[in-house]
């Protein structure tokens, strides 16, 4: 019988073990390929067990080191953390398989370094999911930034260096200048770095300061990519596609919105937010980001850039859900972490597949190629429908709850925002399969997609349909977040 404490260790340590073992297996091509997927399977096995314990309302905490009095690093199981941990570790399995196909198909250099830092980044993301206090959260937030830097600058050319500089300066800068003092402010106000299910600030912080502190958190969490600190995400698209797929559509950005939700629910507390109205400005900022980036996405011809802006827009759904401060909206926001992850990773997988198969990066080059690679465009179509929120794709669930939450909160305008954004989503995502299947072919290109790329892409796109029917355990978890409010 393995205790939950050990499951936490298994889940967070297996990517780290993969990271450490990778350099030693660099001579053996078979072994290095197997490391990632096996690590992912072990890690998500642990994450599943953790989720099970969260469903049974077990409270598990695990202290790792005590740095000084009242400052320690530790992990615990929360419903939201269980969701994010499972998403990151489970999708890592497919991303790991996919990256073998991608890196080989593209004949990339420095593959060992790539795999090692890839696993390191997953490790940091999972640690964020189970962080028990703000300091642990912050530490792994920073490790995540640093471990993705070698991945973003993987090509080591001038563009990559420039993008890397922008990436680091925005993410490290915002977190160090704003997030850290915000965390220390909470520490000074409440006397501890702990978080609790109902928030810790009520009665400890003068309500007049609440909007300021919230602003420090919101702009400090650069990974959530709210405007105007979203520029790093399009810049990070210079990285190889497996990085964009798992990290910049799932692990890194979801770590950002996860931190945002944790701060809104477990530090401020939804009650405190609703009472003080501290988050009202955040609703408008998130709505603006949501629409503005959707419009920008329409004008991007580069496929990955369009997906990046679409990601920023979808992240704002989650922030918006948290800021609305009702139980339905929070539930929708938490569900959106899962649903968007499954959909967006598929879309990025397709973008990478097209690059490996035919060196296509521009949407305008896709005309008429649907017939030569029907499966991959079908996968894109299914993923897009999920992002847009059409049943029976899983994306419809989270949109449904978010809309209910908006109605609950009384901000009717927000419902309108969701509707307009859905139309925009459809507009910029549907263009791609439409061009591929219905436009006239301009030139002959032979698209050859390796099996190791095709299979994970099909699995994740199938996942968006499958999850629609098996959303119940996740919905139970999210309703636990909501019921505690």
């Amino acid at each position, binding site marked *: 019988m393995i205790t939950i404490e050990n499951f936490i260790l298994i889940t967070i340590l297996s990517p780290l073990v993969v990271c450490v073992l990778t350099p030693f297996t660099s001579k053996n091509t078979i072994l290095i390929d197997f490391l990632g997927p096996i690590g992912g399977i072990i890690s998500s096995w642990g994450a599943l067990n953790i989720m099970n314990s969260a469903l049974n309302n077990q409270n598990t905490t695990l202290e790792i080191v005590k740095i000084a009095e009242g400052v320690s690093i530790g992990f615990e199981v929360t419903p939201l953390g269980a969701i994010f941990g499972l998403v990151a570790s489970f999708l890592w399995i497919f991303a790991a398989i996919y990256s073998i196909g991608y890196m080989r198909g593209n004949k990339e250099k420095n593959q060992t370094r790539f795999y090692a830092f890839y696993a390191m980044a997953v490790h940091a993301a999972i640690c964020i999911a189970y962080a028990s206090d703000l300091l642990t959260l*912050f530490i792994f937030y920073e490790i995540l930034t640093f471990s993705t830097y070698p991945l973003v600058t993987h090509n*080591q050319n001038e563009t990559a260096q420039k993008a890397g500089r922008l990436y680091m300066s925005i993410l490290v800068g915002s977190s160090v200048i704003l997030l850290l003092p915000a965390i220390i402010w909470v520490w000074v106000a409440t006397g501890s770095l702990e978080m609790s299910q109902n928030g810790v600030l009520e009665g400890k912080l003068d309500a007049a300061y609440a909007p300021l502190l919230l602003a420090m958190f919101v702009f400090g969490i650069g990974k959530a990519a709210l405007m105007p600190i979203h520029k790093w995400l399009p810049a990070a698209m210079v990285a190889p596609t497996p990085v964009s797929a798992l990290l910049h559509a799932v692990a890194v950005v979801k770590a950002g919105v996860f931190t945002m939700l944790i701060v809104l629910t477990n530090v401020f507390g939804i009650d405190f937010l609703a009472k003080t109205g501290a988050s009202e400005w955040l609703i408008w900022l998130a709505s603006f980001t949501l629409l503005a980036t959707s419009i920008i996405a329409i004008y991007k011809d580069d496929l990955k850039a369009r997906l990046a802006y679409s990601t920023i827009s979808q992240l704002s759904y989650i922030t918006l859900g948290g800021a609305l401060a009702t139980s339905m909206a929070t539930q929708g926001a938490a569900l959106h972490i899962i649903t968007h992850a499954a959909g967006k990773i598929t879309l990025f997988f397709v973008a990478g597949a097209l690059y490996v198969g035919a060196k296509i990066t521009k949407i305008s080059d896709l005309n008429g190629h649907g017939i030569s690679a029907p499966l991959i465009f079908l996968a894109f179509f299914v993923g897009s429908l999920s992002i847009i929120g059409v049943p029976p794709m899983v994306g419809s669930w989270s949109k449904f709850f978010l809309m209910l939450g908006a109605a609950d909160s009384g901000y009717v305008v927000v419902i309108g925002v969701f509707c307009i954004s859905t139309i925009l989503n459809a507009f910029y995502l549907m263009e791609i399969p439409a061009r591929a299947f219905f436009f006239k072919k301009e030139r002959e290109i032979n698209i050859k997609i390796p099996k190791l790329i095709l299979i994970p892409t099909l699995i994740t796109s199938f996942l968006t349909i499958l999850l629609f029917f098996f959303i119940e355990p996740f919905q139970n978890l999210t309703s636990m977040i909501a019921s505690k409010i």
Partner: protein
Amino acid sequence: MIDILIKNLPIIVVLCPLMMSLLVVLIPNIFFSWALTTLSTFLTFLFSILLYQEIQIHSHISYALGKWMPPIGIEYIIDKVAIIPIIIISGISFLATIFAYKIMPEEIEKKSISKVYSLWLLAIAGLLGLVTTGDAFNLFVFLEISSLASVALVAMGAHKDKQALVAAYNYLIIGAVGATLYVIGVGLLYGVTGTLNMADLTNRIADINNNRALIAGFGFMIIGIMVKAAVFPLHIWLPRAYAYAPSAVSVLLAATATKASLYILARILFSIFENSEDLVNNTLLFVILPLSLLAMFAGTIMAIYEKDIKRLLAHSSVAQIGYITLAFAIGTKASIAAGFIHMFNHAIIKGGLFIAITSIAFYINKRVTVNNLSGLGREMPITFFCFVLCSLSLAGLPLTAGFISKLYLIKASISSDGIWLAVLILISSALSVVYLWKIIEVMWMREGKKIVKKENPTIYISLIIITFLNIYFGLDASLVVNGSFEAADKLIGDIK
């Protein structure tokens, strides 16, 4: 035997390097003079550890030199405050001496090496004397011993680069001005109070109110020490001196020299003048606080535009000294503790960075500028790795010692209603990432010529130790944090 040793520890800590320095000068052999220096710094470190244990029991040791009872005789005081700089100085000088073995003969004429080691020990003795003495005039003597020895050490860099002579001359003149100002201040205080013993001064100042001579004396002392501590804008001697000194000397000076003076600054502000609250508070608020903020930004910005790496690190030291004086300027118990935490952490951070950079200089055999570093990260993985870790520590990223200092400094400033101070501190430390990243990126990204064949273990051993300390004290900071809080408690506990 042991009993006598323990009883006389406060003076032995100073005498050990002082006496050995006289001995070392007689040994012409490079290896033996180094071995003797290493032995004596090791013994000094050992004695300071013993002293630390004594302090845990007695908390205040007063030692009357030559059995002349204070306040007439010279008193040596070791308490929970003084032990922090003692440990820093003796520990770092031990590591720096190990490091010096390979580096020193490369940069200095063979025949003067034993003289250098003699000066080296003399400087260490001076610094240790500075922090142990309880007598204001005796402090001046040690101040001069340490500065003259370090000036001579800096001048030794002339064998490689004649600029060192200018640097040493600057250091000498400015240092002498500082020391003179200090001694004028001591003279004025002596005129008003009739005593030189620090503890006695504290008591007698309490009875004197609003005496002009007292205020002037205070001003002279503070400014004199601020010159020595390189508080902005009195720091101009520092970048040149650190940049052109022989590599091992840069390591020693950067990690220890200003720390002793900062400690004296804290002593003057919070212990000698603890009874003239208005005077001290006004000085903190209107002089030290703005200067610290200026130092934080000016030092960092200078570092960003600097191409020569040793100078860059020296500018960064000016900024880091700004953090420490800022902590003192806030003036609460938590902030002074944060100042001492950073004093300790900065010593191990800057020591590590200087060791890393000077080992690179050893291999490429020319001045280290940003452009010379291309591709060295891949050729010297150990040195590079340690450099990156120490840089992260300087920038204050979690799991490193530097994070702990920032954490407590910011906590202290927020709890004394200075959230804007906290934001300024963080902006400045985020800016420090800019210059550190500049170095790391060049070392890692650019292609370079193959220069380095193999890293030399005798050089990187001390680098590894000091980097390990940076990580260890980031993970288990209770020793430093508790020690610093006890020190702050001792300094201002009974007033505020």
